[in-house]
């Protein structure tokens, strides 16, 4: 575990933007910290589209939106005075992506939380940061909660939950 490595999981939402801002604000005066913005790709469900072309278009649009979000947030961190060379982005593609790429590691789609923790463990991140939207008990049961799963399953790392 490297305490100078911070992994911020983002999903393109306002909550994840807040998490990035929080980390930038905390780290701005400190040297030697590396920040990685991680996105685990979750493509729109193919079954909700009438045909493959419509699905592919939605997948491309999703990817562009997240890449733009990553780029904007990388710049935002730089605006806090943190050197760009200390900020990385990692986009983990879905194994079911139709966009014809063969990544070395892809997300199988069963649990975003487990994918985040896999990256954290593999790359020895000391801190995992995630935004939280705040769900009811019933919503957590039905839809699941990434932040709760990370809190319960994370090992050998500190977890920051930004609400």
């Amino acid at each position, binding site marked *: 575990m490297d305490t100078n490595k911070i992994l911020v999981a983002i999903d393109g939402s306002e909550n994840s933007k807040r998490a990035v801002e929080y980390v930038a604000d905390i780290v701005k005066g400190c040297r030697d910290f590396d920040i990685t913005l991680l996105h685990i790709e979750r493509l729109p469900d193919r079954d*909700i589209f009438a045909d493959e072309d419509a699905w592919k278009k939605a997948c491309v649009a999703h990817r562009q939106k997240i890449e733009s979000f990553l780029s904007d947030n990388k710049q935002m961190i730089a605006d806090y005075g943190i050197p760009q060379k200390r900020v990385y982005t990692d986009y983990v593609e879905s194994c079911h992506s139709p966009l014809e790429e063969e990544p070395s590691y892809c997300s199988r789609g069963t649990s975003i939380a487990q994918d985040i923790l896999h990256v954290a463990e593999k790359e020895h991140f000391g801190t995992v940061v995630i935004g939280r939207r705040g769900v009811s008990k*019933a919503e957590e049961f039905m839809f*699941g909660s990434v932040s709760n799963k990370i809190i319960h399953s994370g090992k050998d790392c500190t977890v920051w939950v930004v609400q």
Partner: protein
Amino acid sequence: MSETVKQILDRFQSDPYMGRQGKVYTDTSDFMRITGGDVLVFGDGHYLVLRDEVERSYGVEDPKYWVKRCRHLESGERRLLKLVFYEKFILQMGDIKVTCYRSPRKEARILGLVRGDSRFMQGFSAEDEKGNTIRVLDVVMGKRLDNWIYKLDVDHKTYFFTYLPKILEKFIGACEAIAYLHANGEKHGDIRRDHLWRETQTGDYVWIDFDYTFDFHENPFGLDVFGLGGLLLYIVGKGFYSRNDIISLFGDENKAPDIEPKDFLLVFKNRLANLHKIFPYIPKELNWVLMHFSAGASVYYETVDEFLSDLRPCLKKWGKKQ
């Protein structure tokens, strides 16, 4: 020149057809126009439309214009045809709103996956000349399981000790069927009481209607697991029990047990989950499974396997007692 309905019927039916003779359709896109007396031609089959399917709820009939009750003219057998209808709608579950979609592609894929598996409705998909995915379904000869249970004319105690062990055994089989879907990356999508049927001849349980889908990322099978919990509650209780039902059951509010909000379901807050309070002969182990779906629960089932690993021992223990 293509055949008329009359020519097709004369060719396939020995008895004269006395109903409306409509049009022949090879493109089913405009399903609202297709009605009784029309013939659909696609794949290798001819299907005489008898009428639109209707869903009955609280005595009200709601027509499903995209589902046609038909006769397959080659075999003379009844079939249900589900035509392509895309729909996005909000499903209200207690305080929660879930965005659902109707997906012909999903249902067609699952029909292929469960071909020959009697735990699921049977059928196949075929495309019409415009590429619309039509699902051709065998008609399940039976009744909704919940209706069958409701109409068993016995009190709860008799039901519980006489009927429930066998019902529970079969229900576990139905849950295993859902686990099989999940293991193959599929979800049922709409597990509710009217989608589990009991075949009259065999007594087997059959899942129907797999065309709902939704976009959950962290807990893709959560809604299915929740649906199974609701079904189990109905099966064990021989119905659902609201606060008023409980008072009626005991005849007097003062005689009714003390029921707290945490005893009710987490999502449907007017359905008692803690059935042990009103039926004390329900074993604690079985009640424990139900309590995972209650407002008082702190741990939930995330998978059908977790649910079954608690439910199966209830049946085993029961078997030993009897």
